[in-house]
């Protein structure tokens, strides 16, 4: 399982339990030990993907475009092990916190932009190895499609689909199928439900076709 972890992400014993960790300044009150910060997989879907042993293809040091960064819980860990990390978030309130996270991470670049309008940040973001998407909004497939242009040919899309964001009444499976149907220009490598860490969430790993 650990052989699938990128370098810079590992397991360590913190406060008596084995925790997924990265190395960097703490962000959300997570326990730390000798510079390693526990990655709370219940608060982070990407963390849950690692915990589940999904093959993210990440090796460490990649250039990353992160869509839906919120206050930076997950993207802070990403910036700890990745290279240049572009964090897009369109709500101002969480960005105020995200700026503090980025102040301590010179490789984390905050963009207060709408992930549905990539041309508004294409003059800043370079082609990337990985897109992490966790936007929890309607039209999640459209967001992935619109941002495909940033992904290098052998890059990866690591997307999390939240069923309730698309349609509160529909059955989650239906919503997930619809997302996969609408995904254009990608071939899907792996999908997995993230329950019980995150109810009604599907993790999708894809690569450009």
């Amino acid at each position, binding site marked *: 399982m650990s052989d699938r972890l990128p370098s810079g992400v590992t397991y360590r014993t913190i406060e008596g339990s084995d925790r997924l960790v990265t190395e960097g300044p703490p962000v959300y009150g997570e326990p730390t030990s000798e510079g390693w910060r526990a990655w709370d997989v219940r608060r982070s879907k990407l963390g849950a993907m690692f915990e589940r042993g999904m093959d993210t293809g990440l090796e460490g040091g990649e250039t990353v475009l992160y869509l839906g960064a919120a206050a930076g819980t997950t993207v802070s860990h990403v910036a700890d092990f990745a290279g*240049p990390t572009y964090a897009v978030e369109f709500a*101002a*309130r969480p*960005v*105020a916190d*995200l*700026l503090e996270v*980025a*102040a301590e991470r*010179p*490789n*984390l*670049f*905050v*963009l*207060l932009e709408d992930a549905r309008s990539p*041309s*508004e940040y*294409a*003059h*800043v*973001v*370079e*082609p990337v190895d990985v897109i992490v998407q966790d936007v929890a909004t309607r039209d999640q497939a459209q967001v992935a499609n619109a941002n495909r*242009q*940033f992904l290098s040919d052998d890059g990866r899309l690591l997307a999390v689909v939240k069923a309730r964001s698309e349609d509160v009444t529909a059955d989650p499976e239906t919503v997930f199928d619809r997302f996969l149907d609408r995904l254009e220009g990608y071939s899907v490598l792996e999908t997995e439900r993230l329950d019980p860490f995150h109810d009604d969430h599907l993790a999708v790993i894809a690569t450009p076709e």
Partner: protein
Amino acid sequence: MVNYGMNLCVLYICGRAIRFENTFGSPVVWWAMNADRGSDRGWFSSVSPGDPETYVGAIADGSANEPADWPSRSIESGVVPDQSSYYELLHAATQATARAQVRRRERTDDQRLIHCIRAMDDTERVANELAERVSAWSSTTDTPVSGIDGARELLSRSPTQTDDAIAAATDERLVSLAEQVVSLDDEATALRETIEKSMPTVAPNLSMLAGPVLGARLIALAGGLEALAKQPSGTIQVLGAEDALFAHLAGRGSSPKHGVIFVHEYVSGTEPSLRGSAARALAGKLAIAARIDHYAGDRRPSLQAELDERIATIQSRGDGDE
């Protein structure tokens, strides 16, 4: 910021226009080429490294049709010498831009809070008015109640059985009216909680010194945080006492010593002969707090210590006047 972007655009068009004279015959061709070129320029093409004022417009107002290897391009075009300086510049630029954008958005947050505090006052006032009606009405029943708590009590009781058709019908309306009172009162509480939660973000220092609700009230009376930040402390001291102030200016009555800041314990808790001094000291610090909140936005705990000390001096020696 918009203007800034447009200036750049004009400069750029001028630059292209010179080449157009030499190379192309048709303005249409020139325009097409210009539009095309404009879309593949990186954000850095309009910044001067070391001049943070140029960063915000470059990131916020720029756009491109597609991404490109911006780090290499910036080095090729001589903006930065190497990759690490590129990322350093990008970091400074994105931090400055997002910070400015967040602050700009937060500007409208004060207007939302103004609606919250006015709605809180409205719901409290109407709840009280209707509660009076409920009280008067309930005195015609076997179980008279009084006030908003009375309306709550009335709801918690099981309805009395009666054969009197009129009593049954009107009691039903009375209970329904009591429900409205309770739900308005709950809404007032929820509005207060929202104000208490939001004020520390919108105006951290004002919220710290005045308390969230009084702070929001001052913002509402001034018409916004920016407007409040521009008021002299003497005006802040009497905000909410406009009627008394106008009467005084018209030659009737004395000049008011305080407006809504009276509810602050540092004013109401000071003995009457010293209240004017306490109100003046408090208003002075609130004016500074509002300015820091509007122009800087960071929390300055020292303000609280300074105010505490000043008020202690006034209250103990009674020589607060300068």
